[in-house]
């Protein structure tokens, strides 16, 4: 996406007049790439390749369909698609493929860039593109394609390569077992919903006949008895099959003495069921099966819809999980480099790590030298220089040049893996919150039982035992807190859905209730409060010198070079000539002058003149604040300098203030150096006493646990080093761009850049709880009204049958109409952020 806008910007207005569009992705073709005379123009090689394949395979319909939908193909990015050799590894097949009919095999792949009907159409015709593919089936909701192929005729890497050529980069679908089980459970729920709905509908029809008879319709006694028996049969099916979960939940809450809204509901259903059965057999009094089946049905609807939003959020997180690479480049005995699944790398193997890739194992560098970004693992914002003999850790990112690393630990034995183990124990230790709906269950049940007892006793003395039981049971039924049971999960589900549209993936329904009251919020620094990458903080020297430096750094790969090229306006001039990059710096000729940009040691090594006093002062300032300094020398004279650091996010200060004004205590928890932490803290207005710097990941978790013992702690972080703390916190929030580990440890994952979502989420907590409380008030007023009628002995089953759905519908509308997030810009429906 960033690619698109960048291209649009580059091309700018002067090109708009001509507007040459790429034949594949329909973006403007940069002026330099327009081929005069060609009928089809392309903005990049990726688009050209995709267009060629699509045409050669007779799949031009793709473009027609795109046009019909007013959509366009995903822009290809410049990154090479790779050879997907790891897909051919036997270990990959064992992990992700399964046998299909005959000799065929099936594999599920997560695809990037798939977004519309045309994508579905194209991908499901994959057999035309790759011979040997038997079928391809897309699931847009999960962003996956299931490919059935003949392993004898085509290698999986060829399929992966073809998908990448078409613009859909494939990844192995790393679905965890728990999620697969959940998927099956979802089907079961849907089946129960259907059965409950059918039962409720049929019983309701029969109830109409019975109520009709009540009002003087000519129902013969035999017919009436028939209807009652059929109602009994259908009602019992409904209670025994779809209603089973309700009873199980209630039984568990009684057995383990936990509070659950299931208990009072099950009590009402049970009382009504027994009473209805007795009355049917004795052919007297009221049967309640219409209300009871409808109740079970609505209850299941509320839970299903509520749960669906939560599952959608979980799916999104899982998708992100699959996009993180699970492959490593292993150096084989013969010196060749092969991509293999991470799982087959053993300690002692040598792996190659290219710039931009993260180190897959803990190990020792055997060749190469580079800078490594350890911020995800340690929180340190400055890249660490690494050379042969140094040790590197999994989850660090290689920044500059290729490294070869001999693995000393892999998988769960790495430092990152051991931190993940910490996450699991922390997650198990965390106590659950008692949901508001559940918390009122016990007093509610006790009050209802007491009133029922009083009612029974009073009616016994007045009208005998039969009347007493009748009235007491009808009281139990009409006071069933079903509306609360239906609407509370729905309200939370709605909130989760809205959060997801705003780029906040909430994994658990209780997150909002955990956030309902303010407490302490601890923010990680690197990558959370700051941007997690180098950028220019301030500069020293003449603008024209800096311009030359920026021009020189253009197209360099080092993070510092990229930051300078991005943040310092460069001269429109031209390419630097004779560019030579060396350890610590770069030099070349720009606009006829000899320019060198690099760290102090590099500039001094050039044997030019000494830096002036101004530059020296600037350097000293940088050292004191923990910033990296880069000098610029023109014709051997160091005359300018740039200070770089991990810049604070522009909205961070406002967000910290907003959190404070809502009663949250804001603190910072970082593994970085105290000097850097103090600088960031000062910029954001976080008191020095609330800053803990230089803490190890385990210590972070311990601090969070210590605070958690006294109140609510929200932890916001992005790295592997935050994962344990995230799991330990009352609510753990992983910010956009965070490590895989933080993704699985946190309760909430922010798919949107920045800290604003954190503020929105903390605002939403009290609102969701407020909605649940309103639902409680509305549903209880119905219960009190109906209960009063039942106590007086004047309630008619038809009144109960009407009141019950009305109360449920009114609370459902409260749940749906509730506001979760501030007015502002509402989440644009259906927007995708992946």
């Amino acid at each position: 996406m960033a690619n698109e806008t960048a291209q649009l910007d580059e091309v700018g207005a002067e090109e708009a007049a001509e507007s040459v569009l790429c034949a594949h992705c329909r973006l403007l073709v940069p002026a330099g790439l327009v081929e005069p005379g060609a009928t089809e123009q392309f903005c990049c090689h990726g688009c050209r390749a995709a267009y060629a394949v699509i045409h050669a395979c007779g799949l031009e319909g793709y473009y027609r369909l795109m046009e019909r939908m007013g959509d366009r193909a995903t822009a290809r990015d410049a990154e090479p698609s790779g050879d997907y050799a790891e897909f051919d590894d036997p270990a990959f097949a064992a992990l992700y493929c399964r046998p299909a009919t005959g000799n065929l095999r099936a594999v599920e792949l997560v695809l990037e860039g798939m977004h519309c009907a045309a994508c579905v159409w194209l991908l499901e015709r994959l057999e035309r593109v790759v011979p040997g593919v038997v079928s391809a089936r897309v699931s847009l909701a999960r962003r996956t394609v299931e490919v059935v192929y003949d392993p004898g005729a085509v290698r999986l890497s060829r399929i992966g390569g073809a998908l990448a050529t078409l613009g859909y980069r494939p990844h192995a679908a790393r679905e965890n077992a728990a999620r697969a089980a959940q998927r099956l459970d979802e089907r079961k729920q849907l089946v129960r919903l259907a059965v409950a709905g059918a039962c409720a509908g049929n019983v309701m029809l029969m109830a109409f006949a019975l109520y009709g008879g009540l009002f003087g319709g000519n129902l013969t006694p035999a017919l009436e008895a028939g209807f009652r028996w059929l109602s009994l049969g259908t009602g019992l099916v409904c209670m025994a099959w779809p209603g089973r979960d309700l009873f199980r939940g209630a039984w568990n809450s009684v057995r383990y003495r936990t509070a659950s809204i299931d208990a009072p509901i099950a009590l009402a259903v049970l009382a009504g069921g027994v009473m209805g059965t007795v009355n049917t057999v004795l052919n007297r009094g009221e049967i309640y099966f219409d209300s009871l089946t409808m109740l079970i049905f609505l209850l299941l609807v509320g839970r299903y819809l509520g749960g669906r939003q939560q599952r959608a959020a979980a799916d999104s997180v899982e998708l992100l999980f699959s996009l993180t690479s699970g492959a490593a480049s292993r150096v084989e005995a013969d010196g060749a480099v092969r991509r293999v699944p991470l799982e087959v790398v053993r300690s002692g193997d040598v792996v190659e790590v290219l710039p931009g890739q993260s180190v897959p194992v803990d190990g020792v560098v055997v060749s190469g030298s580079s800078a490594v970004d350890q911020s995800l693992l340690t929180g340190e914002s400055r890249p660490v220089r690494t050379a042969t003999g140094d040790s590197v850790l999994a989850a660090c990112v290689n920044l500059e040049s290729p490294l070869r690393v001999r693995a000393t630990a892999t998988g769960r034995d790495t430092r990152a893996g051991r931190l993940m183990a910490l996450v699991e124990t922390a997650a198990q230790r965390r106590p659950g919150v008692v949901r508001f709906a559940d918390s009122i269950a016990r007093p509610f049940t006790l009050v209802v039982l007491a009133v029922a007892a009083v009612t029974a006793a009073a009616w016994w003395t007045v009208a005998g035992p039969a009347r007493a039981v009748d009235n007491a049971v009808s009281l139990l039924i009409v006071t069933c807190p079903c509306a609360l049971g239906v609407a509370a999960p729905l309200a939370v589900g709605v909130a989760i859905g809205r959060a997801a549209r705003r780029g906040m993936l909430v994994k658990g329904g209780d997150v909002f209730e955990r956030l309902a009251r303010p407490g302490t919020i601890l923010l990680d620094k690197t990558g959370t409060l700051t941007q997690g990458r180098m950028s220019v903080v301030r500069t020293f020297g003449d603008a024209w010198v800096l311009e030359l430096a920026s021009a020189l750094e253009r197209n360099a790969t080092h993070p510092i070079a990229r930051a300078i090229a991005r943040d310092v306006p460069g001269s429109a001039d031209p390419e630097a000539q004779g560019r030579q990059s060396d350890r610590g710096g770069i030099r070349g000729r720009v606009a006829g002058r000899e320019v060198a940009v690099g760290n102090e040691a590099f500039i001094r090594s050039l044997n030019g003149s000494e830096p002036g006093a101004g530059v020296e002062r600037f350097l000293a300032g940088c050292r004191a604040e923990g910033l990296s300094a880069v000098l610029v020398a023109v014709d051997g004279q160091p005359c300018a300098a740039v200070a770089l650091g991990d810049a604070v996010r522009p909205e961070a200060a406002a967000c910290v203030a907003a959190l404070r004004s809502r009663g949250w205590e804001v603190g910072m928890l970082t593994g970085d150096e105290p000097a850097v932490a103090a600088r960031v803290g000062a910029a954001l207005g976080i008191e020095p006493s609330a800053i803990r710097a230089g803490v190890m990941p385990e210590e972070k978790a311990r601090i969070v646990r210590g605070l958690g013992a006294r109140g609510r702690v929200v932890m916001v972080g992005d790295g592997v080093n935050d994962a344990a703390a995230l799991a330990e916190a009352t609510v753990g929030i992983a910010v956009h761009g965070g490590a895989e580990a933080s993704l699985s440890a946190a309760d909430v994952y922010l798919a949107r850049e920045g800290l604003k979502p954190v503020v929105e989420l903390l605002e939403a907590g009290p609102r969701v709880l407020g909605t649940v409380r309103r639902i409680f008030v509305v549903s209880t007023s119905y219960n009190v009204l109906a209960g009063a009628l039942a106590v007086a002995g004047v309630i008619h089953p038809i009144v109960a049958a009407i009141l019950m759905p009305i109360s449920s519908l009114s609370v459902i509308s409260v749940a749906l109409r509730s506001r979760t997030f501030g007015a502002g810009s509402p989440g644009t429906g259906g927007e995708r952020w992946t």
Partner: protein
Amino acid sequence: MDVIYVVLPLALLLGGGAVALFIRCVKTGQYDDLETPPLRVLADDLDEAPPARRAD
């Protein structure tokens, strides 16, 4: 009114059959993805192009 003794069980039977069919649909995974099938319909008419040779 006697017809109701035949019609009512019949109606319940039909309803039960529909539920059974639905359950079969769910169990075979037809409700797992509600997003993709509606999009497939949009492209039904695009397949008149001759199935062409492979590309390399």
